[in-house]
């Protein structure tokens, strides 16, 4: 078991620029079932991907691959003709909100938005648009979702992942990789790793992902990686305290961040004395979460949390 994505995932890609093309190729090499692309000005054409198989991904494949991916004018066309149940969005920031809404309009169950720098007001409108619709959004400004050896959606390096017991949830892409790599090296492995993104307005949040992992029988523990800004970590801590049945480890980035400065992510800012790392760490510890002192200790923190449980 896993959450959100597995071998039944049929993925389409919105946005076939250089980044989108590079990473959808990596996903195909990993063994992800990519069934189509959406590009209004290239409809009815196709894009061929070929290369060496990434053997860290889905097992039982040959050493090379060559696939021709059909391109559709609209997401609705793509869904009707391929039965896609997930979409990954690499569309540039000014048009990304529209791409997310188009996917939601087509009732795609899972929408993963990788795009960074989407205007906040666009995301405010997207969230409003998605109310009452069936789609789940992950991101934007996130590395994506991966279930090791089953399905890779996004931009993460596949080879660092290993199937296992731990669910990973993170606001930061690169810190997700740190956590995942340590969990691979210490043998715990991952059920699924979910990057929820570092924007102030995003789709799936910590609590949503915690719930999914709590209900997933194969997940035995969860590591959540937060950062300064907002109160999502504090809210997650409160939820963990009341509901979580599995051990949780955590890390919060930004202990040394100066107030009033935006630390790269649109959401990572300490303002009005709120959103500090100290507050978040205290809330997590109070909820019984084992908090790693440095990102290099995340794997050990997870071990400790699972031993305690």
């Amino acid at each position, binding site marked *: 078991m896993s959450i959100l994505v597995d071998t039944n995932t049929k993925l389409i890609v919105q946005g076939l620029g250089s*980044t989108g093309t590079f*990473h959808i190729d990596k996903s195909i090499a990993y063994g992800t079932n990519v069934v189509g692309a959406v590009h209004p000005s290239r409809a009815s054409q196709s894009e061929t991907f070929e290369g060496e198989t990434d053997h860290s991904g889905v097992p039982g494949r040959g050493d090379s691959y060559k696939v021709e991916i059909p391109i559709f004018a609209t997401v609705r066309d793509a869904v009707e003709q391929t039965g896609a149940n997930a979409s990954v969005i690499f569309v540039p*920031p*000014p048009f990304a909100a529209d791409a997310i809404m188009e996917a939601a309009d087509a009732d795609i169950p899972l929408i993963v938005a990788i795009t*960074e*720098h*989407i*205007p*906040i*007001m*666009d*995301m*405010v*409108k997207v*969230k*409003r648009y998605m109310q009452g619709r069936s789609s789940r959004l992950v991101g934007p400004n996130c*590395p994506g979702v991966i279930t090791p050896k089953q399905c890779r959606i996004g*931009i*993460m*390096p596949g080879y*660092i992942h290993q199937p296992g017991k731990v669910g990973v949830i*993170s606001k*930061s*892409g*690169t*810190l997700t*990789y*740190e956590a995942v*790599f340590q969990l691979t090296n210490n043998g715990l492995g991952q059920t699924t790793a979910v990057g929820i993104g*570092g924007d*102030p*307005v995003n789709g799936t949040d910590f609590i949503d992902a915690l719930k999914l992992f709590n209900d997933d029988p194969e997940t035995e523990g969860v590591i959540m*990686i937060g*950062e*300064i800004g*907002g*109160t*999502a970590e504090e*809210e997650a801590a409160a939820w963990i305290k009341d509901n979580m049945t599995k051990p949780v480890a955590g*890390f919060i*980035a*930004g*202990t*040394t*961040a*100066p107030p009033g*400065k935006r*630390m*790269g*992510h*649109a959401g*990572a800012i300490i303002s*009005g*004395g709120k959103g500090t*790392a100290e507050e978040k760490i205290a809330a997590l510890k109070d909820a019984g979460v084992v908090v790693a*002192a*440095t*990102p*290099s*200790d995340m794997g050990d923190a997870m071990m400790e949390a699972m031993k305690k449980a």
Partner: protein
Amino acid sequence: MKIHEYQAKELMAGRGIAVPEGRVATSVDEAVAAVRPLIENSGNKVVVVKSQIHAGGRGKGRFKEHPDVAGVNVVTAGLEGGIKAAEEEVRELAKKMLGSTLETIQTGPEGKQVNRLYIEQGIDIERELYLSIVLDRAQDKNIVMASTEGGVEIEEVAEHTPEKILRETIDPAVDLTDFQARRLAFGLGLEGDGFKSGVKFFKSLAKAATDLDTDLVEINPMVVTKQGQVMALDGKMSIDNNALGRHKDLQEYRDRSEEDPAELEASKYGLSFIKLDGTIGCLVNGAGLAMATMDTIKHVGGEPANFLDVGGGATTENVTAAFRIITEDPSVKGIFVNIFGGIMRCDVIANGVVEAVKQTGLEVPLVVRLEGTNVKLGKQIIEESGLNVISADSLKDGAEKIVELTK
């Protein structure tokens, strides 16, 4: 992107939001020339001379060169001398203020140079109120916050008398509604003309926040004039950087003199850079990892000299620029490159570092930790370059090594 008070007021005035009449001045003569028309047009004998910097607390701030002069000054054309005397007073103030360094609670001890003044008509104030529009991350929507405690920091009100803060959520599908604007006006105790003008003010400002993609609008104080008009006496506004692409007209509001030169240089290359006080330069991909790298350096006994996220789309040229910006900082005694490549490829980083060292030389220790996409190729490029690079196996290992080397 922060903008100046006079720019925020220009935007508000263009949207029918009441602001005092004012003129911006970059020279003493311009400041003096503003006095007469302002007094004659408004019929009010008072003008206010306001420093324009991207920091609050100006009224209580003082100039380093002239400790007797405040950041904001009120000048009255009294019976003796009339407008002429007021002009001379403004001249003396402008001479001292322009080009001098204003220190406020928000500028830090280094202060900020004042390059512009805003000369504004005086207002007969009946009441001082507070209004702001910010994103409420719990609701994923903008909210209007208002309070009767004008002139007081909202954080203070929130701490001591939270019941005095009124909140209305702006639904992006319909904007602030009439009933919400009325509820705010009732809550603030507005009556008669003040009530009507308040409702219009709140609705127009909420719409402006949406249309202009603001991160923050804060009117403190928002006043009710003796004539019964709700008006923005001050105006703080900041625009979402990610939305500047669709606001070409707002891009010219950017005041580069307000920005740190190194941060400005970095932004040209799409790098997210923040200067800090320590000695260890950091070059990292990803904001979370960049923050965590700073945290780890501090944890093992060092002090980071900067936050630097090269992002996911950086080219070799961008990385070279990043490296150069770090090495140009004289306080940097060592550099730690920490990369976990996802969208960012390790070979691009490696090429950038090698290229930068070729161009600028390297006089301080360099520790490099590479992991992720194309890691083998990246490590190979570094090795074959023959550079004196210390490699690290993990973030903590790298942090310990660079801290040790810079002791």
